């Protein structure tokens, strides 16, 4: 650990859209954790990203 940064601080510094995407991704990852290669996951991240940058 190079500095005293906490996970909270790092995430707190994200832009509002990035924060939304981060939560979205974590939700998707958790849901699919038990599946080795979830087919739809990447596309869902892509879709969420597009949605956020409309």
């Amino acid at each position, binding site marked *: 650990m190079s500095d005293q940064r906490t996970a909270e601080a790092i995430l707190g*510094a994200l832009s509002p859209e990035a924060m939304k995407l981060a939560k979205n991704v974590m939700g998707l990852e958790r849901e699919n954790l038990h*599946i080795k290669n979830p087919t739809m996951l990447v596309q869902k991240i892509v879709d969420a990203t597009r949605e956020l940058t409309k």
Partner: protein
Amino acid sequence: MKLLKLTLDNFRAFYGRQVLELDVDDDKPTVLVFGNNGAGKTTLLNAFTWALYGTFSADVEQQHRVVHDQKWADTGFGEPVSASVKLEFEHDGTIFAVLREVSVVKDADEQGPVTPRLVVTEVRRGESHQVPNGQDRIEKILPEALRRFFFFNGERMEKMFTAEENNGEVKQAIKTLLGLEAIERAINDHLPKAARRLAKELGKDGGTRLQQLRDDQEQLEQRQMDTRERALEVSRDISSYKAQVEAMERALRDNEQAAPLQKERQRIGKQTADEQVRLQERLARKRDLLSKGGFLAFTGGVDETVIDLADGMRRRRELPAGIQRDFIDGLIEEGRCMCGTPVAPGSPAFEELDKRRYNAGLADVEARWMYVSGQMKHLGDARRALLEELRQSAEDMQACEDTIARLDAERSEVDRQLQGVDVQDVQRLEQNRKEYDEKRIAAMSEHRRLEEIVAELDLEIEKVKRRFRSAEAADEESRRVQQQVNLVNEVLDAFSEVLEVKTEEVRLRLDAKVKEVFSRIYIKSHTPVLTPAFELQLTSPAGVAIRSTGENQVLGLSFVGAVSELAHEIHERKNNNSEEILDEGGIYPVVMDAPFGSLDLTYQEDISAALPKLTSQIVTLLSQSQARGKVMEHLQGAATRMYVLRSVTPNRDAAEETIEINNRTVPYVTHGDFERTLLEEVTV
């Protein structure tokens, strides 16, 4: 994960259906199960892991005999028979039922190996669904790499942290448990893929600045991936070279001990051979002596007897006088001398003849006698010499035989010491060791070089990404794509940093927890340390501690306690802060067989007091002798439920037994038709 119920059907020692209810009150986390030796405690521990992972721990004998023996024996050929374990538990608001079952049609007297079938069902919002990839799901709830921390045998706990155990696996499993795996998957796989897919929209002609940068990045990433793969190969090589070097070193060490022994064995062999030659020589000499002078041995006393006899005969005038006397006898008989003179008896001529007759031949006899008696005296000396020589030779041969016997004994001792030592050519071993060590060193520097390349590529990719972020977009459409990719990259960068921080945080917290729990139960000034590689070490003021069996047990229990406490804490924090996107954790049960293993009574007391605080649910399997006095008090005080494994035996010679629980007398061993174990709940 909260255990709810374990249902056994004809599983091993448990005949028919036996049920263990497992839900506990918050303030009384323990389920206590008592059982005699051989009642089925270890079987019960294994029932949990068999249900979850389909395998038994290595110490379980006759693993293919899953179905209760009596049940199997009662089944006719061609009839179906089955055994199963069902474990019901709750995890993250979902109720799961894990059913593991062997089900076969009997076609032989003996049970054969069968792969059990797994059915996982989940109940969510009142609806029950079968989970198609049940084993994967179980893996995410409680990774198999961690099973030895949650389902363990106190007697085998010292094996928990030995070098053979794969710490990398443990590290990964702890990450899974503490919720870091999800973020890891996002970083390593899904976010980069999403960024790439988005960037595809920029088109393919390669003319624009953004396209150019994207293609550069892709190339760099490809190179980085290849380099990583190569590094992985090299690191596998390093492990195998290292294993080789270690094997050679072991062999060399063995040979170091063996070399002087081998020399000793050679020396003994040579001496034995020499001594055998000497023995042969002496044997030959004895034979020679006997063949040449052996008769002498039988002449003992003959010489003296002959001398005496002859002397006496002479005195008695019995000595023979040969021909001369016969001739005179003839003259006397004829009554006339050779000269013609008649020799009448009584005449002076007769007297003369008679006198002559006696003396005739005597000189001859005398001469012969002198010879014989001379020979006889010589015979005696020769015999004495022979006997002396024979005695000496016997002595020498005995000495040879004694030496050979002593050498045999020496060799037998050396052989014993050499037993099991793989005797090899030391020089060749040394050569091989050097070769592999050089290969290992070369591979290590190759690995370092590859890692440097990966790091350099990281920097370059970063640079390209930065340029991409701020590059001028040619049109509106490209600008949007640029924005999207940038957004994904922003999250990706943040996640990477978070993972680093979190992993270190988890390690530090786990380290602190282990220290805390350990010092709570252990008196010595030893300190456990969780290294950056997630290896658990124990240090004493003198450096790395040499751990006793008991110390390993305390260490193991501390680690188990620390992991579950930490998981619990993280889980609580998440529940209190629903905005939190990272924290996961959870609550985990611990199932312990013979938790006190080989611990002294004081530790048993301390641990029995500390156990209930370790985690929110503990199933403890023990025998009556392992729960006396204070230990029993502590355990019972924290128990929501208590069970007895009642052993039923057809052996009428064995006394029936009872056990006192809560001032209640409960059957422990009873007589019955056949061997089996019953699970009986005792009211608390």
